[in-house]
C-alpha cells in the first residue's frame, strides 16, 4: 500500500512540522529552525531510538524513495523561487566595502573549511572520495548563506536600503551564486569521473545552456512580466507554461550532468524582477512548496540524520570543531572584512551574525553531498547539527546585539525574522 503509506507520512510530517515550528516561533526562533528540528525528531535520532517499531511502521525503508521524489519536486519549486527573488543587480558592486566583504565572506570560510578538511579527511572520509572533492565540498558547504532568509528579514524590516541591508544582501547573493557554481563544478567532477573529456563536455554544455537561458529564454519569460503588468494576473496557461519551463530547465541541467536544482535556480534568476511580479509568483507557489512539500524535505533529511553515529568524545570533538570553524569563517570573516572597510562595529557584528545563517540552503547542499557520497553519514549528521546551531544562534545573538537602544525596533526586527521559516514564504 505505497500510496497509503505516503499519505500517512505526509500527514504526520506536516502535523509534526507545524507543531514544532509553532513552538520554536514562541521561542522567537524562525520557523525554519523548528522544521529542521522536527525532521530530526522523526528520524532515527529520536523516533527511531525511542520507538523503533513506530518508525519502521511510519517510514519503512522501501517507502523512502517516494517521499524523496515528492520532496525533490518541492525543492525544484523552492529553488526556482530562490532564483526568482535573487536580483542580478544585487550582484553588482555597491562599492569597495561590499566587494571586499562579499569576497572575504566566501574565501575565509572556504579556506578554513579546506584546512579543516586536512584534519577530517583521514578520519571521516574514505578512498572512494578524493581530497579535492571532499575539501571543495566542505568549502562550498561552509561558505553558503541562507539568502532567502536574509532577504526576508531585511525586506520585512525595510532595511534593504540601509547600509547594513545593502551590504548583507549583496554579500549573500554573491555567496550563494558562488557557492552553487562551486558545487556545480564538484558535481561535474564527481559524475564525469570516467574521463577528462566528459568533464569538459559537461562544463561546456553547462556554459552553453546558461548562455541560452540568459540571452534566449530570458526574452521569452520577460513576456510573463508584460502579461502581469497588462492584466494584473496570469492566466492558467501562463502558470502551466512557467512550470513547464522550470521542469524542462531542471531536466536539462540533470542531463548535462550537474543537478536538477541548478536548472530550477537558473530559471528563477532569469525571470522578470519587477517587485510586484516576484511577490505575485512567490505567493502563488509558496503554499504548495513551502507549506506542503518543504517539510517533506526536512523530514527526509531528518531520516538520513543519525546522531547516534556521532559517538564518543572523539566524534563530538569533530562536530564541535566543525561548528567552530563554520562560525569563525563566516561570522568572523564577514565581520573583520566589513570592519576594516570602515563599517561601524555594531553593523559589522550584525552583518557577521546575518551571514552566519545557513538554514535550508545548507541542508540542500548537504543532501546533494550525501547522495554523491562525498560526505559520509556521520559527517552529514555533524554538518546538519552545524546548520541547526548556526541558524538557531542568529536570533538570540541579534537580540543580544540590539538589546540597547533602539531596543524596540531591534527586537521587532528579530521577532519578525522570516516567520515562514523557509525563507521564501511571506509572513
Amino acid at each position, binding site marked *: 500500500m505505497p500510496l497509503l503509506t505516503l499519505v500517512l507520512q505526509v500527514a504526520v510530517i506536516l502535523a509534526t512540522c507545524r507543531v514544532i515550528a509553532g513552538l520554536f516561533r514562541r521561542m522567537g526562533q524562525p520557523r525554519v529552525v523548528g522544521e529542521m528540528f522536527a525532521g530530526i525528531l522523526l528520524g532515527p535520532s529520536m523516533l527511531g531510538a525511542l520507538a523503533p517499531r513506530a518508525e519502521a511502521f511510519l517510514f519503512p525503508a522501501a517507502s523512502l524513495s517516494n517521499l524523496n521524489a515528492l520532496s525533490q519536486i518541492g525543492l525544484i519549486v523552492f529553488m526556482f523561487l530562490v532564483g526568482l527573488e535573487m536580483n542580478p543587480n544585487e550582484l553588482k558592486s555597491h562599492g*569597495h*566595502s561590499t*566587494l*571586499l566583504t562579499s*569576497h*572575504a565572506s566566501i*574565501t*575565509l570560510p*572556504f*579556506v578554513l573549511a*579546506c*584546512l579543516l*578538511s*586536512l584534519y*577530517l*579527511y*583521514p*578520519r*571521516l*572520509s*574514505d*578512498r*572512494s*572520495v*578524493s*581530497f*579535492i*572533492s*571532499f*575539501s571543495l*565540498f566542505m*568549502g562550498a558547504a561552509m561558505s553558503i548563506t541562507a539568502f532567502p532568509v536574509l532577504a526576508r528579514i531585511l525586506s520585512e524590516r525595510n532595511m534593504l536600503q540601509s547600509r547594513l541591508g545593502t551590504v548583507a544582501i549583496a554579500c549573500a547573493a554573491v555567496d550563494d551564486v558562488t557557492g552553487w557554481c562551486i558545487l556545480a563544478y*564538484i558535481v561535474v*567532477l*564527481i559524475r564525469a*569521473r570516467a574521463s577528462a573529456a566528459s568533464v569538459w563536455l559537461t562544463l561546456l554544455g553547462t556554459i552553453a545552456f546558461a548562455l541560452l537561458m540568459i540571452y534566449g529564454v530570458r526574452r521569452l519569460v520577460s513576456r510573463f512580466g508584460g502579461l502581469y503588468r497588462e492584466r494584473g494576473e496570469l492566466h492558467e496557461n501562463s502558470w502551466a507554461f512557467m512550470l513547464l519551463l522550470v521542469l524542462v530547465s531542471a531536466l536539462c541541467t540533470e542531463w548535462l550532468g550537474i543537478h536538477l536544482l541548478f536548472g530550477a535556480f537558473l530559471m528563477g534568476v532569469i525571470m522578470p524582477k519587477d517587485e510586484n511580479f516576484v511577490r505575485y509568483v512567490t505567493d502563488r507557489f509558496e503554499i504548495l512548496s513551502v507549506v506542503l512539500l518543504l517539510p517533506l524535505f526536512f523530514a527526509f533529511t531528518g531520516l538520513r540524520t543519525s546522531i547516534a*553515529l556521532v*559517538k564518543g568524545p572523539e*566524534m563530538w570533538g569533530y562536530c564541535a570543531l566543525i561548528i567552530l570553524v563554520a562560525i569563525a569563517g563566516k561570522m568572523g*570573516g564577514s565581520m*573583520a*572584512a566589513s570592519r*576594516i*572597510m*570602515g563599517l561601524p562595529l555594531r553593523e559589522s557584528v550584525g552583518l557577521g551574525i546575518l551571514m552566519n545563517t545557513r538554514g535550508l540552503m545548507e541542508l540542500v547542499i548537504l543532501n546533494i553531498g550525501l547522495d*554523491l*557520497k*562525498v560526505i*559520509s*553519514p*556521520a*559527517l552529514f549528521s555533524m554538518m546538519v547539527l552545524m546548520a541547526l546551531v548556526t541558524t538557531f544562534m542568529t536570533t538570540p545573538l541579534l537580540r543580544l546585539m540590539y538589546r540597547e537602544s533602539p531596543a524596540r525596533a531591534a527586537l521587532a526586527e528579530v521577532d519578525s525574522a522570516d516567520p515562514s521559516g523557509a525563507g521564501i514564504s511571506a509572513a
Partner: protein
Amino acid sequence: MSFTKGTRFIVGYFLFVALPVLGLVACLKYGHALKAPVSMDGLWGVRSSSMQPVQLHCLAEGAAAPKSSISISQSGKYLSLSMVSGPEIAATGTINERTITLSADASAIGLEGPGCEAYRRFNITATLGPGDRPQSLAGVLSADGCASCAPVSFAAVRLAHSGSGGRD
C-alpha cells in the same frame, strides 16, 4: 595615522581574499598526498565460516550462518555493522590500515537461550583484501567472558558498494 578607503581596500583584499586563496592552493596541494581509510562500506556476503551450531544458536538462528549477508556503513575510519537478514546485530568499530576491529555488547545483541550468558561481548577482527576498494575480507569472531569458546574464523566477499563516491 589614517588610511584612505582605497588603501584599506587593497590591504583588506590582500589579507582577506588574496592570502586565503594562496592558502587554499597550498592546502589542496598538501591534501592531495593525504590518505583516507580504504573504502569498505556496502553489502558483504559471508562465504565461509567455521562457526559450529552450538555457537550459532547463541547468536540466534541464522544470524552469522554461512552465506548470510552483513551490511557495513562507513564514515571514514568509523564502521558500523548490521545483519541484513535475521536478528538485529549491530557492532561498531574502526578501520586501521587494512585491519578492522568491531565489537558488540551481548546485551545489545539480545542473546537468548541456555548457555548464552557466558557471552558478554563479541569481537570481530578481520583483514581486508588488496586495493582501495577491497573485495574480500577474512577474520575471526571471538567472545569475551567465555573461556571455552574458541575463536571462529570467517571470510566474506563484497556483494555491492553502497554507491558511487566522489573520486575524480
